[in-house]
């Protein structure tokens, strides 16, 4: 039951900086997700909070206590690892009770707490089994149970679902979310999977090269990415990014998406964009609407036709691939019909849904 505070947290491996001046306050009971590509420093951050990695600079507070120099065992945090790391020589029960046994809790109390954890996670029938006799999902559940039993101040999850197959991953994701609602504890969760990040988090932190790129609620991050990296990282399929020229003509500002495809600049952006030469345009796949998609009325003033390079039917939708300025663009077609490669389809774009990024700094305009 505690908040976690990171102040100017830095980690260096020789000359390589893994985490740079990270400042972050994680309030009590928050589900925080650290997301980013491999090597962005998210796992390192988590391991520093756990005390498994020495810090090169800055401070870590758990509750109001500075824990920089404390051993992992004295920090009262529990960690769940990607590969479960269950003790293979102990039964499920012994695995769950191990931390209490080390803390010299008496046997009756261990029994009660283990029983409780077993009940929360639905492991009743597996109590006497060894880890080698469990499936992947069951093992991950035991690993979570082991973390629960201790009643830690904070749970640390290090890519806990990466070793599971797709179906199980979805299922366990829901369970983790429910668990958080039940336990009401601070959770810091590391993943490279943006879907996990979106679905689980109260707050997402997107990291890259040891820096925090953006902090915000999942919807906020999705709707208002602060730069091109966040825009392409969050959302599936990734946001379409096109470098465009700006045309200023008769007091009108227009954006050239491709030869002969020119959109009006949205009114609220004109002042910022009109004095630029180029701009990076980001459009989500669902905002490039095929006109053949009958669900939407054709109420836009303009549209453009393009030949389809590839169509990927997904059941509820079909993803259409075509090119703008020789860059691959993805559009989402809801209510799909069969599409032939090479077929010409008309698309519309609502200019108000376009994201603009600075050509030089890649930051949102």
């Amino acid at each position: 039951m505690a908040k976690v505070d990171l102040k100017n947290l830095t980690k260096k491996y020789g000359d390589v900086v893994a985490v740079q001046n990270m400042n972050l306050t994680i309030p009590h009971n928050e589900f925080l997700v650290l997301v980013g590509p491999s090597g962005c420093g998210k796992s390192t951050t988590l391991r520093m909070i756990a005390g498994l990695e020495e810090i090169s600079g800055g401070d870590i507070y758990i509750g109001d206590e500075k824990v920089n120099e404390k051993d992992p065992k004295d920090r009262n945090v529990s960690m769940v690892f990607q590969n479960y790391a269950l003790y293979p020589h102990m039964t499920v029960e012994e695995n769950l009770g191990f931390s209490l046994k080390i803390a010299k809790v008496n046997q009756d109390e261990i029994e009660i707490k283990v029983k409780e954890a077993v009940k929360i996670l639905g492991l009743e029938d597996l109590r006497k089994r060894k880890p080698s006799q469990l499936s992947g999902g069951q093992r991950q559940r035991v690993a979570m149970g082991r973390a629960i039993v201790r009643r830690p101040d904070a749970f640390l999850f290090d890519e806990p679902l990466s070793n599971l197959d797709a179906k199980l991953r979805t299922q366990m994701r829901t369970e983790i979310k429910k668990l958080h609602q039940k336990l009401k504890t601070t959770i810091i969760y590391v993943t490279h999977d943006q879907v996990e990040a979106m679905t689980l988090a109260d707050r997402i932190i997107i990291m890259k090269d040891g820096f925090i790129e953006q902090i915000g609620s999942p919807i906020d991050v999705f709707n208002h990415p602060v730069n091109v990296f966040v825009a392409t990282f969050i959302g599936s399929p990734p946001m379409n990014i096109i470098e465009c020229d700006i045309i200023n003509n008769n007091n009108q500002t227009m954006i050239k998406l491709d030869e002969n495809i020119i959109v009006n600049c949205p009114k609220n952006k004109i002042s910022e964009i009109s004095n630029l030469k180029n701009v990076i345009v980001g459009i989500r796949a669902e905002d490039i609407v095929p006109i053949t998609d009958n669900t939407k009325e054709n109420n836009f003033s303009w549209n453009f036709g393009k030949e389809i390079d590839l169509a990927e039917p997904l059941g509820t939708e079909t993803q259409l691939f075509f090119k703008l300025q020789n860059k691959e663009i993805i559009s989402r077609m809801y209510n799909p019909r069969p599409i032939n490669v090479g077929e010409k389809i008309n698309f519309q774009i609502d200019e108000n849904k376009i994201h603009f990024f600075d050509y030089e700094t890649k930051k949102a305009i």
Partner: protein
Amino acid sequence: MIKQIKKIGFWLLVLFLLILICLPGIWIFVSAFRPNPEILSKPANWIPDRWTIHQFTQMFSINGYVSVPAFKYLMNSVIISSVSTVIAITIGMMGGYAFARFNFKGKNKIFLSLMLARAVPGISLSLPLFILFAKLGIINTSFGVILVYVAMNVPFTIWLTDGFFRQIPKEMSEVARTDGCTRFQAFWNVELPLAGPGIGAAAIFAFLLSWNEYALASIITRTVHSKTLPIGMMDYLDEFTINWAGMCAIAVVMIVPALILTFIVQKHLVSGLTFGGVKG
């Protein structure tokens, strides 16, 4: 039909190789239980005409007459081998863990030099060892022999246990530490039990090396006070005669405990090696 012939041929070959390998051992066993003249008879007499335990009764002075103090040698061997093994495996285990888990300056060089120490033939050290031990006054003591065997076995046990600890995922100790263990508790409660079979194997190897060692012991041990079984065997070598039967008998005394030990632990080794804590 051809298949069957092939199969029979295969097993005949296996049998032949097996006999070839076991023959010296069999010969020792057979010779230990028959009188000396029969061993020397030509052509060789494969099945003894007369079985006897004469050599054993004499060795262990069951009928009053002592040929060679085999019991004392056996005790020396047991004490020297077990004590040196316990010390070597304790040091080796900790050393192996350090090499597997920690990074420190000159780690690779130290490891390499340990391995190189193993490459030096023990016998080449015999003269310096003899002089050194003589000056220190530990020649002809069990302590001296134990010291040599520990030095001989530590690099070996470090090398073996390092390999076993490396196979245990690092997360095991990490999760134990977030579970409230100190580094040592994590080692003791989690990593050591997991490496147990490997450490057992290393211990057996170390024990057998000490148990069978001849060259260095022959330099350091002088009297019945510290002689081990392999050295004791030479007591049957007189100026004009060699008591082959006695030698074979004492060889049997040496082989049997080693065999039993290997059998016991072999079972334990296999059963302990099935893990499942980590996806793999």
